[in-house]
């Protein structure tokens, strides 16, 4: 039986590594998903149809604060990974909570930005530019929101299970995901907002 158990641990470690490789490949496909949305946005970014332009709509305090929140949350999720490697479960949960709060702040600001724009009459059906804008930025926001639910479920599991090989894998995955969303946001900031107001 002891042989069986040691064998089982090997298998688990192997499977967790496999899952992380698969997650990297999933992220590749997600890059292509965003790539396609970016391409569509680039084609349609000047199709205002006489409606509001990016210059009129985007407000610097909003998107700069969003950037600040998301970049900081990427940093704190890095600190969470450090705590994971040190094996300090409470510290890990703590950093994840801070990461999630920053993420929620980001989503809140984005919802606020969207509702302001809609209130001004800049809706998704106003022009092709706005269709592309809401879809591209909204897809990123949706990714962040899904990540938040996932992160909370991981925190609960960390509380009950502690740091196991399975939990190590899960924390590694969510932090990969989180950094990935941060990178996508850098492109959003540059291509949608900064190029939009220029």
């Amino acid at each position, binding site marked *: 039986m002891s*042989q*069986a158990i040691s*064998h*089982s641990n090997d*298998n688990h470690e192997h499977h967790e590594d*496999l*899952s992380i*490789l*698969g997650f990297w*490949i*999933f992220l*590749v*496909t*997600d890059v*292509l*998903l965003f*790539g*396609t*949305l970016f391409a*569509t946005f680039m*084609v*349609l970014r000047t*199709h*205002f*149809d006489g*409606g509001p332009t990016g210059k009129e709509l985007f407000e610097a305090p909003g998107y700069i604060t969003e950037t600040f929140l998301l970049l900081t949350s990427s940093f704190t999720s890095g600190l969470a990974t450090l705590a994971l490697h040190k094996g300090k479960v409470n510290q890990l949960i703590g950093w994840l909570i801070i990461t999630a709060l920053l993420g929620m702040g980001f989503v809140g600001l984005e919802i606020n930005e969207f509702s302001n724009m809609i209130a001004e009459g800049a809706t*998704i*059906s*106003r*022009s*092709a*530019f706005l*269709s*592309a804008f*809401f*879809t591209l930025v909204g897809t990123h926001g949706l990714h962040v929101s899904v990540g938040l*639910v*996932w992160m909370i*479920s991981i925190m609960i*599991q960390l509380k009950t299970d502690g740091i196991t090989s399975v939990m190590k894998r*899960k924390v590694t995955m969510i932090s990969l995901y989180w950094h990935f969303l941060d990178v996508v946001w850098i492109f959003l900031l540059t291509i949608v907002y900064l190029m939009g107001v220029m």
Partner: protein
Amino acid sequence: MLDNLKDFASHFFVTGDPLIYGADVAIGLTMAAIIFVLFYFKKWGWLWREWLTTVDHKKIGIMYIIASLLMLFRGGVDALLMRAQLALPNIHFLQSEHYNEIFTTHGTIMILFMAMPLMFGLFNIAVPLQIGARDVAYPFLNALSFWMFFFGAMLFNLSFVIGGSPAAGWLAYPPLSELTTSPGVGENFYIWGIQLSGVGSLASGINFTVTILKMRTKGMKLMDMPLFSWSVLASCLTILLAFPVLTVTLALLFIDRFAGAHFFTMLHGGNPMMYVNLIWMWGHPEVYIVVLPAFGIYSEVVSTFSKKKIFGYKSMVFSLMIISVLGYFTWVHHFFTMGASANVNAFFAITTMAIAIPTGVKIFNWLFTMFRGRIRITQPMLWTLAFIPTFLVGGATGVMLAVAPADYQYHNSYFLIAHFHQTLIGGVVFGYLAGLYYWWPKMFGFKLNVKLGLWAFWLWNIGFYVCFMPQYALGFMGMTRRVYTYGWDMGWAPLNLISSIGAVFMGIGFIFQVWQILYSIKYGERDTTGDPWDGHTLEWSIPSPAPEYNFAVLPEVKGRDDFWRRKEEGLDNKIKEKDLKPIHMPKNSGIPFIMSAFWFVAGFGFTFGWTWMIVIGLAGVAGCMLARSFSKNNDYYIPVEQIRKTESKYGRLV
């Protein structure tokens, strides 16, 4: 109240056509019969435990294949209806709107719900066994892929009797597929049916990529892999690059329809040509996704039945990879007539022609493998031999279409229809049928009857040429695709009639195959050795059908075609009892089935725009994901005693 209900029902259900009422009755009776049989023989528990919750790649493969054959039947009936309508001028068998629906569902079903699942079925059956693995990398995800495909296909097929079928062509070009021009729910069914199964395809792409990269048995280097596994890798890498584009494209079309956005509309700055570009950025790689594994099958079959190693293994691998890369850079050849600049058209014409080079390399390698080989004409070999001339003509007409200026003449004509059917039937379907005949004994432990198979083979082949050769000529005579009828004065009648006769031949061929399967279940030659074809690769070293753990002891290989080497060296495939260890296996799970069913609910809600249903569906999906995340003990061990019992039953234990 009753009037409201009546009004709702008359919109909800498709009405007014005797064909549809016939289908309603047939569907109802079939469902009732299935439910009755399951109750009568008390098979519900068996169905749930053995099939609906299974994570075993071999069973998932079988389910894929059954589903795809059913879809082949449905798509085939569509094809016969079309050929009946076109057999003679001025026939009023189908109305124009009905004809539009039928060519749309025919194309969509044949590519996405027949070719793709048949391909994934063969991946599942063969790849883990060929590379000496106990399962795929993610068995749970594998089951999820299957059920997402299955419920996606069901959602799409439901449009036939509920709500109305899509009618904007198999790629649903806007502005025709936009809300203003296709106001019904048909296009929504199209979008969500494909979205659900597309998620499954993408997950399978990831799954098999990791399986091939990481799960090969000891000693098997990449360049030692059987060529079918190589072709699966090439196909999966293409899936990873292409399917996200499809997901986004259909999502954007749906946002247009659902939220009134303007991605592809004619008004408010939308750009319909953007859709055509995007959909072909998926659509062209898609044809290589389905044909590459067929190339892999031909390689296995030619090598096995010529009793030779494949000629030019390395060049075979390189040409697979070159095709999968080049396939991503040819999409514009589907719309040279869009009016892009001459430079753009020239680029895509050249890339398209360039694909003929690696394909030609492969054809020559198959021929050289057969050269001076000891050829055995078995059923898989027959289909392979039939493929070579068929694909040669298909490839040559493809190069003709690639010439951009000449394409202005062929564009959207029956010449094109003949060309792509020639490559998709002659290349893909023949290949998958060869694969089915080849791996059938490994799946079920018996061979398929040869005599009935020969009938099917000749009916298919003769029918194929009779059906599609006239269509090349019809294209030159000016007949365009998607016309639902034509006049006597066009002069198209004789060739159309011949073409329709050919289609009937192929339909009869399919019936022979169904008969062949049913007959062989009872009378087929049993395979007791596990190696009915004198094979070269690892899947033939284990019993047929393979035990649930595949390999009692994982094999260690020393190079290509290792099983053949072992046979040449006179080694047997017996297993020493002291080598047996408990085997780590994934547990069955109901979550993939339930989660996909919730996706179906959400997809149905999106189709009809019913928010409450969308909410229920998506909440169910989220609940399933969390349930999986929180579940523990998802695996178990098969004890040595049980492995000993199974292996000694096959007489493999020393």
